[in-house]
């Protein structure tokens, strides 16, 4: 666990995710797409109606985030992860369409953890409540879909060296489980 950070770049291929293990520190660069509750709902509706999604999912990474509006002259406002479990009910069809990475915080459902193993996908956590720092890793931000959703719209971000931790790898590793087992005091 931990050690020096691994630099990786999106899009992620099968070989890219297979080498990642729970607890790995990551510096992620490349394109990521923001999508949180309402955007997931919209994408699920489109999939149900057999309509195209606003972006291709193959090898891509979703960032569960809704940024603060950018102040004048800034690329983006503060941005950070939201709780991932709320996206679980919508995630299976996205993984089946080639989604390879998700950035959020907090637990995933057992079904999604299983599907990640099957689909070779990885779940990264970003530090919650460190949005002023994460904004600095975003070099470009373009609104690409669902503008009417305000903070829940989909943005295509170009990020550089975004600090992340691998929580669920595609081999069954789970940092949340392993970390708590290491530090839990049994007697209480």
């Amino acid at each position, binding site marked *: 666990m931990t050690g020096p950070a691994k630099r990786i770049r999106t899009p992620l291929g099968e070989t890219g995710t297979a080498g990642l293990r729970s607890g790995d520190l990551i510096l992620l660069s490349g394109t990521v797409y923001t999508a949180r509750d309402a955007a997931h709902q919209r994408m699920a509706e489109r999939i149900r109606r057999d309509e195209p999604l606003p972006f291709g999912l193959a090898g891509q990474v979703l960032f569960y985030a809704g940024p603060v509006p950018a102040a004048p002259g800034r690329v983006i406002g503060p941005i950070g992860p939201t709780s991932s479990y709320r996206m679980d009910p919508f995630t299976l069809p996205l993984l089946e369409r080639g989604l390879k990475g998700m950035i959020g915080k907090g637990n995933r459902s057992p079904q999604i953890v299983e599907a990640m193993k099957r689909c070779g996908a990885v779940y990264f956590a970003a530090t919650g409540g460190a949005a*002023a720092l994460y904004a600095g890793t975003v070099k470009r931000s373009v609104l690409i879909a669902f503008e009417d959703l305000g903070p829940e719209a989909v943005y295509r971000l170009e990020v550089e060296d975004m600090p992340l931790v691998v929580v669920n790898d595609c081999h069954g590793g789970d940092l*949340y489980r392993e*970390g708590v087992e290491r530090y839990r005091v049994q007697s209480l």
Partner: protein
Amino acid sequence: MNIRELPTQTVTDTVARLCVEANFFLGEDVLAKLRDCLEREESPLGKSVLEQVLGNAAAAREKQVAMCQDTGYAVVFLEIGQDVHFTGGGLMESVQEGVRRGYQSGPLRKSVVRDPLRRVNTGDNTPAIVHCEIVPGDRVRLIVAPKGGGSENMSEVKMLPPSAGREGVMDFVADRVRRSGPNPCPPVIVGVGLGGTFEKCAFLAKKSLLRTLGEPHPDPYYAEMESELLERVNALGIGPMGYGGRCTALAVHVEAHPCHIASLPVAVNIQCHAARHKEAVL
């Protein structure tokens, strides 16, 4: 008896300012507790999370931006002296206007939907939740506490039987934190409301989060219960951001109130490490 006049415009201006300040500037008490945690934390990953959180607070302060992208649902507490007369418009509307302006000017994120099921964003982060209390005197104390959704979602109310007693309450609180795991952005502050009625205990839990961190309950019985609960919660091993570690909570605050002979209501309101509240006295 002298009645003091207070223009509602002053309320609007103050609420707007406090919304922004609460989101930009993490309190010194929280920073001190985070530094304590960094000293004590044994997990390398936990330490690096705490360093990031402290670095982020410094960056937010310096750049004058929000520390977290979830700039919260605005919860406003008003303690209104009974000798105050508000002039120049409705008091409640003046609070809402303050929230509207604060979130626009920040800029802060607008995180409120008009209806819980039909879910269309109101676009200005109103309506705020406003709690009013009438107190003696001719001053108004105003507290703005933006509350993030992630930690609020890990909160719970339970109506225990009186026989559950102190142990039953402690078990419920510790279990609520255990089940929350990494979701509410630990290290958290655990607000516990005890007694009263169903709604009163939830309010007490929320209000307990306004207490300065490090200040124990004035009643030694509850002060002891708070430190025992903190020890139990930190023994869970959840740690910073849930990656495993010694620091799961910065503090546990308990507020108690008389209750019915049949009841032992308990509420747990979880607060993330971005524990934001700012106040002013008008």
